């Protein structure tokens, strides 16, 4: 019997979380995807759309020099990612417009037109709250254990709101702890793809990424 029709090996069965037989698909996520931390690669095993196994690695990401406008645009970029992954095109387009304006004019966040309006809109949406509430909640202990920044505490909705606040106040977080990629894998196991991507985006991995490579370089 031909076990790899067309050169692709057949998916093998395995017990899923309900104890039923379900095909296991090997899917690689990254290193380049929309709304995805650049350079991050997750080698996933999927059953249906649930991530059952993950191995994470980082492809070398050069550290570009940044200034304050970059930091703000980056924060807004992350916001665009979460909103787009949450399927809210209107708000994502609004955030993208503000981001472009920030890069173009180099304005400080409080001068940016529409940022406050976006913030109110995001906070007011009960469907967004419903869809992100309770998604991969992290306690303070877990955050410490995984080496995440302290503001990753809470669920995905909390993280989004904090990300929003960071963008609105233009806070830079230079004192982020060193981020370890293998912990990321633990955070997305057991989630379906959409949820896994939301959780990753909410962790604001863009900024963590650079720290990690610096760390490697420093010890290399």
């Amino acid at each position, binding site marked *: 019997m031909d076990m790899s029709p*067309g050169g692709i090996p057949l998916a093998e069965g395995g017990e899923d979380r309900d104890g039923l037989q379900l095909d296991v698909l090997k899917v690689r996520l990254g290193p380049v995807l929309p709304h995805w931390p650049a350079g991050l690669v997750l080698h996933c095993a999927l059953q249906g759309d649930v991530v059952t196994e993950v191995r994470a690695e980082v492809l070398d990401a050069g550290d570009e020099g940044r200034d304050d406008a970059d930091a703000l645009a980056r924060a807004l970029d992350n916001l665009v990612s979460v909103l787009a992954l949450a399927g809210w095109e209107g708000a994502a*387009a609004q955030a993208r417009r503000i981001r472009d304006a920030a890069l173009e004019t180099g304005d400080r966040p409080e001068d940016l037109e529409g940022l406050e309006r976006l913030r109110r809109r995001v906070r007011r949406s009960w469907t967004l709250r419903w869809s992100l509430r309770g998604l991969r909640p992290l306690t303070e202990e877990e955050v410490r254990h995984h080496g995440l920044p302290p503001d990753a505490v809470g669920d995905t909705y909390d993280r989004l709101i904090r990300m929003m606040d960071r963008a609105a106040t233009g806070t830079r977080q230079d004192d982020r702890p060193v981020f370890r990629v293998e912990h990321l894998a633990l955070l997305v196991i057991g989630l379906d793809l959409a949820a896994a991507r939301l959780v990753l985006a909410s962790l604001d991995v863009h900024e963590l990424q650079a720290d990690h490579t610096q760390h490697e370089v420093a010890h290399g």
Partner: protein
Amino acid sequence: MGEPLLVQSPGVPGSPVVTVAPGWAFAAVAVLGALVVVAAMLDGALSARSAGGPAGGAARPFGEVARLMRQRRRTTVQADSLLWRIGGAGLLVAAALMVAVVPLGRWTIFDLDVGVMWFNAMDVMVWALVWLTGWGANSAYSLVGGYRFLAHGLGYELPLMFALVAPAIAAQSLNVGKVAAAQEGLWFAVWMPVAFLVYLLGVAAFSVWGPFAPALGSDVAGGVRAELSGVDRLVFEAGRYALLAAGAAFSVPMFLGGGAGPVLPDWAWVLLKTLAVLWLLVWLRRRLPAFRPDMFLEVGWLVLLPAVLVQDLLVAVLAVWRT
């Protein structure tokens, strides 16, 4: 529009609508096509406006059609081409079959005595079509899109069915023309608002539209349509708009009084009301975050289904009381 050639409707005695000659089906498909174009233009204009770019997004669909027509058709290794194509092209067919039972004022193509069930059967067929499109490509992302659609389907389908039951109970008929005629004076949308809202959600859902679009999500490279290219993609997208338009058109006899309205002829009122509902659905896309497929089942069964069942009960009590 001239007076169509009429044939006597043998099937439904006492039907308020007349069946036109089968050749008029082409006209119905043309109207559906026009609605698809209008919906796509509206969506393009709204997209352009929300992105803050220069005006002129309304012309975007035409550019997109030209692009897709010239794009070379890609295929995947070991794709199940037959089922894949059936799925992609089937949406348009399902939408055309839906509008066959929608009376345009007094005229209908197909005066079926169980027209409401016919519509319902077509929207259930969409399950298979979207799933086949996701499955046939033999690609993990399309497959995930298919799973997402089915997860939504489990949540929206039963509420949608029971939402369609309410007007049928009130009119005491499953004939679409009779349901429209039963709304003399008071539209069903007014005194069964829950059923109307659930119906609109259902239309968005079977068109894989707005909050129900995770099956086509950008996080899975376009989900169900990830591997569709060229004409296949064009037909699939047109099919989604056609389903949206057919759903909007069907809401007119079911909830919005059919062709009833002052001054204008009844067929014009049907078109106007259809356009209004279609506009609402297209506009809605950008306003709401997606309903996550893994969580929507809870909403569908614990909120929508009980709400619409209570609505059905109220409608049934009123219907009995009035006779």
